[in-house]
């Protein structure tokens, strides 16, 4: 993936968010030093239009960066903040405070759209959506979840900071799309680590990578990683206001199926060392397993896609797929 922005962004991530730094902040609430570096890089306003003082970039242009952020395990709601700032700016609200912002989609009855709450990542704000209305609200730390992350909770006592109209479920699609991109990146991370490990670790007098069973497993991982990367680019292909329901309906089932395979094959390749707390593998697989639980998992999205196909049963499936895709 080549892109003028990607290389400098990757250098920044190498610099500020190496696995050691991620590990240090793994069980903490946010990483102020990493956030400061991101904020100063100007990337948080990448999606904000130029007339509102941003860089006016498209989600498609940011997709490789969002995947790279997942690949680097960036422990902060970077894409979420970018999306929130662009959505708010589009509705005429400029967010003066350049701190992290979470996305918080609710259903019409006000229930969360995901069984796992957002990881707080040092955020004080969340953009919350219910029906056709988005509200900027305060969040506080909610406690530590079973994955060890500090989650966020809406601060129900405080008054909303801003409120504007937003097409129903826009935030859900954005939040799910960003999850897909982060997962695609984490999957690539597992593959890279696994390839390096099987070429180095020796058993029976030769590197594991010489064994055909391992080669086949790594190839299957690579296939799923490539598929995930294209799915992530696809879910972010639509210009602002951003992803549509069926974009997510294509991407989330594909990512989920692939992530399960990549987690299993990655852990198989590493053996016992991958199960240890001090090994980096679980930094990736923990996020993937949490991602599987987010925003409905695969089933309801797959169902929506199937329903859309049945609503136009006349043409071929090629016609249907072509009509889904943007551009």
């Amino acid at each position, binding site marked *: *993936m*080549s892109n003028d922005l990607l290389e400098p962004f990757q250098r920044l991530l190498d610099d500020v968010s190496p696995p050691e730094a991620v590990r240090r902040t793994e069980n903490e609430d946010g990483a102020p030093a990493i956030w400061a570096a991101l904020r100063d890089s100007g990337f948080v306003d990448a999606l904000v239009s130029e007339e509102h003082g941003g860089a006016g970039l498209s989600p498609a242009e940011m997709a490789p960066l969002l995947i*790279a952020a997942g*690949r680097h395990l960036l422990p902060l709601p970077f894409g979420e903040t970018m999306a929130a700032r662009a959505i708010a700016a589009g509705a005429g609200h400029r967010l003066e405070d350049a701190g992290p912002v979470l996305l918080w989609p609710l259903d019409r009855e006000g229930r969360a759209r995901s069984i796992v709450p957002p990881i707080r990542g040092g955020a004080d704000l969340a953009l919350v959506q219910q029906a056709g209305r988005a509200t900027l609200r305060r969040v506080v730390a909610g406690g530590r979840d079973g994955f060890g992350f500090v989650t966020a909770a809406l601060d129900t006592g405080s008054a909303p900071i801003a409120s504007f109209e937003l097409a129903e479920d826009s935030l859900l699609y954005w939040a799910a799309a960003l999850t897909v991109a982060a997962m695609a990146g984490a999957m*690539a991370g597992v*593959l*890279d680590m696994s*390839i390096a490990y*099987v*070429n180095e670790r020796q058993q029976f007098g030769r590197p594991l*990578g*010489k064994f*055909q069973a*391992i*080669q*086949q497993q*790594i*190839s*299957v991982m*690579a*296939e799923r*990683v*490539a*598929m995930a*990367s*294209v*799915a992530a*680019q*696809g879910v972010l*292909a639509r210009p602002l206001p951003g992803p549509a329901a069926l974009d997510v*309906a*294509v*991407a989330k*089932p*594909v990512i989920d*199926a692939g992530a399960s395979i990549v987690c299993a094959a990655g852990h198989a390749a590493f053996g016992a060392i991958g199960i240890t707390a001090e090994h980096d593998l679980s930094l990736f697989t923990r996020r993937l397993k949490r991602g599987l639980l987010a925003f409905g998992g*695969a*089933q*309801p*999205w*797959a*169902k*929506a*896609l*199937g*329903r859309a*196909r*049945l609503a136009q*049963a006349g043409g*071929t*499936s*090629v*016609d*249907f*797929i072509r009509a*889904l*895709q943007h*551009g």
Partner: protein
Amino acid sequence: MTTLLDSFVRSHIPSSAEALRGEVKAFLRSWMADRPAHVRARSWSGFDAAFSRALGERGWIGLTLPRDHGGGGADAFTRFVLVEELLAAGAPVAAHWIADRQSAPLILHYGTEAQREHFLPRICKGEMYFCIGMSEPNAGSDLASVRTRAVRDGDDWLLSGQKIWTTYAHKSHYMIALVRTSGGPQDRQAGLSQFLVDLSLPGIDIRPIADLTGDAHFNEVFFDEVRLPADALVGTEGAGWAQVNAELAFERSGPERIYSSIVLLDAWVRHLANLPNAAEHEARLGLLLARMAVLRDMSIAVTARLAAGESPATEAALIKDLGTELEQDIPREIGEALAADPSAPPDEELLRTLAFVSQVNPAFSLRGGTREILRGMIARGLGLR
């Protein structure tokens, strides 16, 4: 990130290529109108010379070959659109399929000018059909162990030995055969060459083999001192191994490897559309379509690389493996869904289509290189072994 994955950059089919789609659809509507799904599902193995000639008349065979050899001079995207529509409709492409996908590009790259002038225009007209003589009884995945041999006799060659699984040898005009011209099986990749074998020559015996559905598309082919002229050699003597690998790369790089079960899928969609409890099956259908949609994007990404003059062999192998897996899952998923609901049985046509696809689907990951061999190639591309 791993360089292999960096090459999957999502791309778009340019409108110049999309322009062909409507025309292809209109053409197919008149040809395919009353063919039942179980016939259309045979697409790859549907041999229909009249159909191939009609495609040839429209310039739709050899679409990417240069115009001065009778080709269409179009880019890889235009071919993608054409092939995608042919397969989605279940068009009977077998007669010209191998010549179009493999033989013509091989002759263009490695043939002499005289060979190009003789063969390419006839292929493009849909009048000359080819088959591939690679596999032998004792040389399957291990292709380098072929024993069929051509020995010099004056200016000519004498060809003896046996090929097997040769798709449509019994209806083709020529075979491009990989044979040994020097050394023995211990010499492996060295000493192999490719020949254009005129299948009407004396000394050739072609015996069809029925497949597990009773269809007869592949054959055993025996050569008994078949006299080949000097100009039957294609490419360089002794360079057959490199040529065959280039040929297989042409074969793997199209959209062909995601749509082998699409006729069945769409027949099931029509069945579901009339079902009161269709909602129960939406998720199953959606999962298949999600995979198909992303695989299509991956295929377009590889097509963009082809159009840019690259030959992304590992990427093509990767898509083929994922694609054949989807093609094989489709009949299994549909079978499960239909079987679970005896109160809403499928009509005869859908059931026949399912029976056919679910029986032949193992072949999807055998033909053109098995799943295990492809995964070995991918591993090598990733820097293992």
